[in-house]
């Protein structure tokens, strides 16, 4: 059974293959979409009552109670921030607002303190270490996919969850998956088969746009306050989707430095160029 819903600002597809009556499959898929909705509600920049928006509105240094999901995502973000020496940085919110990728919020333009984690955590409390505008778009989709998979896996069978291109499969089935050719995104490159793993891809073909004379993209180099404009697509294979999602950002922004990190996270990075060449990063 295969269903799709608009969630997380994109389309989430769930494909479940299991020996069960239709009503049961329906129920399981509905529960998995509910898990995705929960993450969406907590981490959406667009919702003013999300944990993320509450954290963004809070003064720096003030502790905010957050849901355990949010705490886990912030914790992984800090981990990736440190491990990538600041390349992965959730303080990209200000640039994204400025470039029109996120709705208008009051933003403060401050130099990014290098080496300081954007957020401090204490159990289920979080506080900003500066007047940042945070965005979790680089990791929340992957995390939502993992929660949906966790929910579905409990029922057995094989399945696939795809949230706007961040996907993960579970069970014994081998799933054929595809990448889009960056030079012609309507063309697909067969990739896979994928068994029990996650695949995330970062690319500009749907999101690059002009701001006056400049070309911008939602892939932000926070340290330089510049968008990534290289048009090749970067994909990462990992055991889980949150890690794959986060690592694609790092691999896209700093491909030559990503190998170590990819190996450390037991992941595989690939670049698909405009000329159609596919190469490994590690």
């Amino acid at each position: 059974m295969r269903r799709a819903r608009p969630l997380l600002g994109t389309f989430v597809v769930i494909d479940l293959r299991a020996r069960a009556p239709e009503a049961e499959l329906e129920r399981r898929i509905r529960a998995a979409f509910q898990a995705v909705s929960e993450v969406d509600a907590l981490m959406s920049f667009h919702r003013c009552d999300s944990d993320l928006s509450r954290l963004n509105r809070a003064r720096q240094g003030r502790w905010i109670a957050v849901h355990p999901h949010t705490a886990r995502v912030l914790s992984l973000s800090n981990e990736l921030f440190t491990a990538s020496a600041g390349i992965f940085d959730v303080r990209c919110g200000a640039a994204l607002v400025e470039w029109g990728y996120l709705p208008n919020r009051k933003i403060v333009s401050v130099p990014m303190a290098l080496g300081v984690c954007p957020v401090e955590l204490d159990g289920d409390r979080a506080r900003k270490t500066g007047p940042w505008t945070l965005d979790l778009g680089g990791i929340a989709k992957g995390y939502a996919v993992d929660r949906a998979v966790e929910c579905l896996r409990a029922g057995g069978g094989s399945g696939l969850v795809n949230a706007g291109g961040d996907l993960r499969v579970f069970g014994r089935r081998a799933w054929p998956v595809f990448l889009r050719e960056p030079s012609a995104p309507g063309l697909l490159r067969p990739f896979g088969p994928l068994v029990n793993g996650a695949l995330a891809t970062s690319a500009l073909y749907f999101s690059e746009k002009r701001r006056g004379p400049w070309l911008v993209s939602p892939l932000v180099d926070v340290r330089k306050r510049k968008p990534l404009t290289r048009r090749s697509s970067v994909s990462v294979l990992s055991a889980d989707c949150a890690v794959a999602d986060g690592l694609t950002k790092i691999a896209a922004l700093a491909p030559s430095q990503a190998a170590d990190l990819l190996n450390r996270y037991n992941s595989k990075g690939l670049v698909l160029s405009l000329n159609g060449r596919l190469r490994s990063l590690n």
Partner: protein
Amino acid sequence: MIAGVLIAAPMAQVVRAETYLTEDRAVQALFPGKPFRPQWAELSPGDIKKIQDTSGERVLSPRVRVWWGPGRQAVLIDRVIGKHEYITYAVGVGSDGRISGVEILDYRETRGYEIRRPQWRKQFVGKTAADPLRVNKDIQNISGATLSSTHVTNGIRRVLETYQVLKDRG
């Protein structure tokens, strides 16, 4: 030489389409076990203006496909056209006027994508714009950059206002 000729020749367009649910199955999914009946409702110019003003979204057609259930519960079928895709979806509305659920019925990619690099054109020797649009109905699980569902979210706002207009008719 050949590349020079091909630059003038557009590639054959392959269009991907996927159907998840038919209308009546969507209604069953949104309101399991409840009896619903389909209707084509017609919006007056006044209705359309009201919906556009309150939702901030343009109404593209005066005809609305709505399934009515017990207690003024409803499922409205709507479609939106994005930059790359054409989507038909169903919105379940409770008797309180709030969304009970959203299901996508079908999804079709609509554009032949422009090719940026000449090398790619070499693959399409002999194909021209006269070639028919092929619809690829195989399910393809794609890991790619994210497509935005904003137009669906905006459409849902319009659908909810449309429900209010239709409900008040009695």
